[in-house]
């Protein structure tokens, strides 16, 4: 007779996690974070071209997510995964704080002396290189209309399905497909311009 043990303890489905969040269990927020912080962070970095802003956005998104459950019961999770819902929150956070970020930048620029000194640690250098690359890619993508750009970010960069991207954007799946189709038609020219 043989027996086997699972390699890892079974993890809760997102639906179970969602129900725990509805019951306002703090540990569920920690689990949600451990599952999706990396995905939200990557989305925010690619969306802003800045690791610093992305770090802030990740925290804000999860705090806002918790507050959603505190305000009212959203009902059962409607999808297989909570990621599209989280990315929708992150997207709103990034939009809402864009002005605050710009004002903070202006504030820092007005200071007589730099508030921080450059850090030449390898990890920081890697982030700086990555930011430069992302900003170059975003510059190329910027010729697309905002709604097509966002669709490309979600489907190609965040690797969401058409259905999940539609949830984040709050539009029909057909709209997402149409936007991608239009963006694809324009992308070859964009690639040429920024080569």
């Amino acid at each position: 007779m043989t027996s086997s043990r699972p390699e890892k303890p079974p993890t809760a489905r997102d639906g179970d996690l969602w129900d725990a969040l509805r019951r306002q269990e703090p540990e569920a927020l920690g689990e949600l974070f451990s599952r999706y912080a990396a995905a939200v962070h990557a989305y925010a970095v690619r969306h802003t071209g800045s690791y610093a802003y992305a770090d802030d956005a990740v925290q804000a998104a999860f705090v806002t997510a918790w507050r959603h459950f505190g305000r009212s019961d959203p009902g059962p999770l409607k999808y297989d995964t909570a990621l599209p819902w989280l990315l929708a929150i992150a997207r709103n956070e990034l939009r809402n704080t864009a002005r605050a970020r710009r004002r903070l930048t202006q504030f820092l620029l007005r200071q007589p002396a730099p508030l921080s000194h450059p850090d030449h640690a390898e990890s920081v250098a890697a982030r700086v290189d990555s930011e430069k690359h992302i900003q170059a890619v975003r510059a190329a993508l910027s010729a697309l209309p905002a709604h097509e750009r966002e669709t490309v970010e979600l489907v190609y960069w965040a690797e969401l399905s058409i259905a999940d991207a539609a949830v984040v954007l709050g539009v029909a799946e057909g709209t997402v497909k149409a936007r991608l189709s239009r963006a694809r038609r324009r992308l070859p020219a964009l690639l040429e311009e920024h080569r």
Partner: protein
Amino acid sequence: MNLTTPPPVEPLDPDYATDVQHDLVRRVRKKRRVPAWTPVLAAACGIAVIVAGGVFISRSNNEPSPAGRPTIVQVPAGTSPTQSLDLGPASGNEASVAAVACLAKEAAAAKPNQYPGGSLDPATIQLKSARWIKALGLPGRERQLVQSFMTANYVWFLCVDGKAEPYQGVGDGATDDVVGSWSWSNVGSPSVLRATFAFRSLAIVTRVELRIRGTEGASPWSVVSVADRGGYVTAVLPDAQARHGSAKVDIRGLDKTGKVLFEKTVG
């Protein structure tokens, strides 16, 4: 460069992610934690409220309590009447003239380098909102102009009657849906207590309300609609109802369904 390939992203530092995760859980747990002594305190408060209510009812002329501190009336939020201060949008010309005047006053009072270059240039004004509200406690005045506008470098101004109001921003890390600065003063003759609140709010907040509670009564809720995620609300209470200068100011923010998202008492 292939735009359909995700640009590589440096992964979240595991130590940092763990710290953030623990901090998040700690913060939300702290918010909902109910101390063991809460039932005892609640019972004591219940007794205190009953006693205070008895004292309040038995006082024939609402003299100060034996301790010398007057009691501020408790009026359930839902029982106070409401009065809208909104009088509708101002014309573009009215808004432009007031915005230029507001910016000029701000420029005259600004410290060197307080604003980035060009931000005080009236040519850069972009009007965002301009609404009239009822003037409360301002003798000879029927309405006040509340407006917001942006200038160069995304500097945002909230002005009331051509004077900039201080405000805080809401966004990353904000714990409240509405933030702002409040003030009160005695104005007019006969004197009334006038409270004001200039605010910014999250997009979900559609109206903000304010009332004053004194020793002898409470004002209605003054209600203003939120425009451009900001606004200004005032209320007045006759001095006779706020004897000995004692009063509290209640502020709350509501969403479009009337659900209270934010409430705070100051004073």
